[in-house]
């Protein structure tokens, strides 16, 4: 097994909701010691559903536990000067600070980049914002839906003739988080070579804007706005999802050339399709997909999803199941590859979650521990790491600087 790259690196995590917590979780999986600094006065995912067995509790939220595994939890009141002083002490022994509060919040608490740099000159400090930290919209509140809508992604998502749709999965947070991790690893490498820290700024709207190069190019060439085309493709046909036997079951099929279409026709037991002049070339299939799709639909509708996938893949046709979240976590292929891991959590037991999307020399760099309980590591962080004596710790607990 390869050495974990971030052993000995400490992260002060001021992440909110998903994007930066997800970022710091990836760093934890890579071996960093991540101290999550939580404030009881402004909890988010900890008090939001989904809860284990729908029973609320600060340690029972899936939304929290799935983006905070392998971290230490330290609960400080950042509205209290003593709480802020403790946060500064944590930062002064950390290599990296990450935050995604609203623009200006860290600065108001005295924890902005300039403040922190005086505590730790080589600090790597990352700020993520929905719209970034500059520009006329920097103060706008933006959840994933707003980011979908502003970036234009919704405008290229939707069924033909229908309105713009919002992509599922709250992925803008995690996708932006991947850019954050990339930038932080680069910065850590740069610091190892030069001794220099730096400030990093990420805008979620720009991470999504980068998904649309063709649409941006077409618009800026001649003002053309993209049409919504459902699951269809500009060069491939058939290219869609088709209903299979049962309720809410679909298979995705994508064909790009005549050989694949012939194989599809054979697998479906209908060589007539490949012989039909309406479907005899990629151009013809693109033009006549309204005629072609119902034929394929008729074939798939009496079969189970795995049956269609196996038949088509055996014939050399790209096809896959349309999985829902529960099916993703139970997928035998992804389970066998180690993507699905189930760390033991003291209050909610084993809950499957998705790890890194890659293996290293066949092993999965993965989840060391489940998410921390609320304030689980206050003593470890404040007393052992910061060396705050017993009586002072008791005072800070009593006056509420530590929750």
């Amino acid at each position, binding site marked *: 097994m*390869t050495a974990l*790259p971030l*052993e000995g690196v400490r992260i002060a995590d001021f992440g909110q909701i*998903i994007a930066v917590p*997800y970022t710091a979780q*990836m760093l934890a999986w890579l071996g960093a010691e991540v101290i999550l600094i939580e404030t009881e006065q402004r909890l988010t995912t900890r008090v939001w559903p989904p809860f284990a067995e729908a029973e609320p509790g600060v340690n*029972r*939220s899936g*939304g929290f*536990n799935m983006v905070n595994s392998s971290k230490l939890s330290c609960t400080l009141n950042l509205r209290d000067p003593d709480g802020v002083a403790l946060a500064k002490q944590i930062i002064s022994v950390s290599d990296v600070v990450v935050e995604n509060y609203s623009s200006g919040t860290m600065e108001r608490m005295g924890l902005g980049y300039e403040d922190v740099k005086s505590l730790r000159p080589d600090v790597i400090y990352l700020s993520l914002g929905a719209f970034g930290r500059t520009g*006329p919209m920097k103060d706008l*509140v933006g959840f994933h*839906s*707003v980011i979908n*809508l502003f970036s*234009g992604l*919704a405008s290229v*998502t939707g*069924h033909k003739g229908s*309105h713009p*749709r*919002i992509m599922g*999965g709250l*992925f803008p947070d*995690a996708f932006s988080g*991947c850019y954050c991790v*990339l930038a932080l690893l*680069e910065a850590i490498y*740069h610091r190892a070579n030069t001794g220099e820290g*730096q*400030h*990093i700024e*990420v805008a*979620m709207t720009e991470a999504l*804007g*980068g998904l649309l*190069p*063709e*649409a941006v*190019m077409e618009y800026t*060439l001649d003002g053309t706005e*993209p049409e919504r085309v459902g*699951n269809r493709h500009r060069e491939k046909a058939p290219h869609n999802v088709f209903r299979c036997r049962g309720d809410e079951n679909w298979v*995705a099929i994508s064909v790009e050339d005549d050989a694949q279409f012939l194989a599809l026709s054979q697998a479906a037991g209908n060589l007539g399709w490949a012989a039909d002049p309406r479907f005899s070339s990629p151009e013809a299939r693109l033009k006549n997909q309204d005629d072609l799709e119902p034929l394929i639909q008729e074939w798939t509708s009496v079969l189970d999803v795995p049956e269609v996938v196996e038949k088509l893949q055996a014939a*050399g046709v790209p*096809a*896959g199941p349309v999985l*829902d*979240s529960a*099916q*993703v*976590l139970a997928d035998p*292929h*992804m389970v*066998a*590859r180690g993507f699905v891991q189930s760390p033991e959590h003291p209050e909610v037991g084993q809950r499957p979650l*998705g790890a*890194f*999307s890659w293996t290293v020399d066949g092993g999965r*760099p993965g989840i060391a521990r489940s998410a921390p309980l609320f304030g689980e590591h206050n003593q470890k962080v404040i007393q052992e790491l910061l060396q705050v004596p017993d009586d002072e710790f008791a005072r800070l607990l009593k006056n509420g600087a530590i929750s």
Partner: protein
Amino acid sequence: MLQQGALVGLKVVEFTDQVAGSFCARLLGDAGADVVKVEPLGGDRHRKNGPFPSGVPDPDWSGLFLYLNSNKRGVSLDIESPGGRAAFQDLVNAADFLVLGHNSSEIERLGLRREQLAEANPKLIVTAITPFGLTGPNSGYLGDDLIAISAGGMAYATPGIPDMVGDPDLEPPLRSNTNMAGYLAGVQGAVACVAALLSRTIQGTGCEIDLSMQEAVAAVMPFELAHASYHEAKARRPEIFGVMPNAYLPCKDGYVVVMAVMEAHWRNLMDLADNPDWAELEVFSSGVERARNWDALEPLLLEWTMAHTGAEIAQLAQDRGIPCFPAYTVGQMVDSAHVKERGFMRDMEGPGGQTFKLPGYPVRMERTPWELFRPAPALGEHTSEVLQEWLGYTVDQLTNPGVGTR
């Protein structure tokens, strides 16, 4: 232009026929690495994709190719010919990274597993991005963006909160008309590459990274997976948000998200709607009640949204701290003062002087800033240059049917 990226001095060989591998290698080039894209003699498939500045196909001016391959040099080799394969192996022997992006069967067929490549170069990091990974029961499956988005769970989850499926029979799972899975896998591939680089500084040797596009899609949906993991029930579409209004509604000129789940936001929203009598009804007295009685509330809210444009609603609401936002077209995004002031879009010029823009980079790094320092290469543009500079090839060695020079 002087490169200042964090990865200056590192060498990358890219060999891929999918968006994911190309984007992964581009991100390494964006960070300053010397990226050499190896294309077949006929050129990378994305050279055919467009759009094209003149509207006429031109392999050197495909928009998708330009975007995926800036900050790289281009070498053209037929790696299935002896001469091309030898040059490819020499490049790999000199590289820090080899980025692959194909179906897994193609990687096996071409003998591109790390154990087959790294004997002469133990420091080599091989990153293979494939639809379903190099191992596991489905590793031989073919796939593309649609297949990965579907098998990774994102198509089923779309439309996402607060958008909803009207009639499930008429609305099958949905993909975005972009190469989204390729970008998701590409950026995760770049993360894996730099993580492996840091590991290499500790242990001295490289490694093989096996990244699955299916998993790269699933990995960006932790919240969606949490629902399945914690409710132990199948997440059905459509699912109404538990606290309302967090809704995606039509308005006078398009669509708008109206989000007022906090009581203060709700009261502010009702102020904006001139405090109608129904705002005081018991059935709308809390976010949970408003979700329970959404069928009654939706038409009432629609009266207000349909009387205003998306921009008006957003302005009125955001002034009161309510997070509402209209659906932008691509043009509205590109032309927005915000995008302009941040300089996100980059100006490009086509072969006939056509001007257009492509998205820039979403990360600003103080000491290792991103720059567009090199446009995407023409086919075989740097074959001679790179083989001479990296490997000291002579003119004789360059004259080979498997080596494509211009």
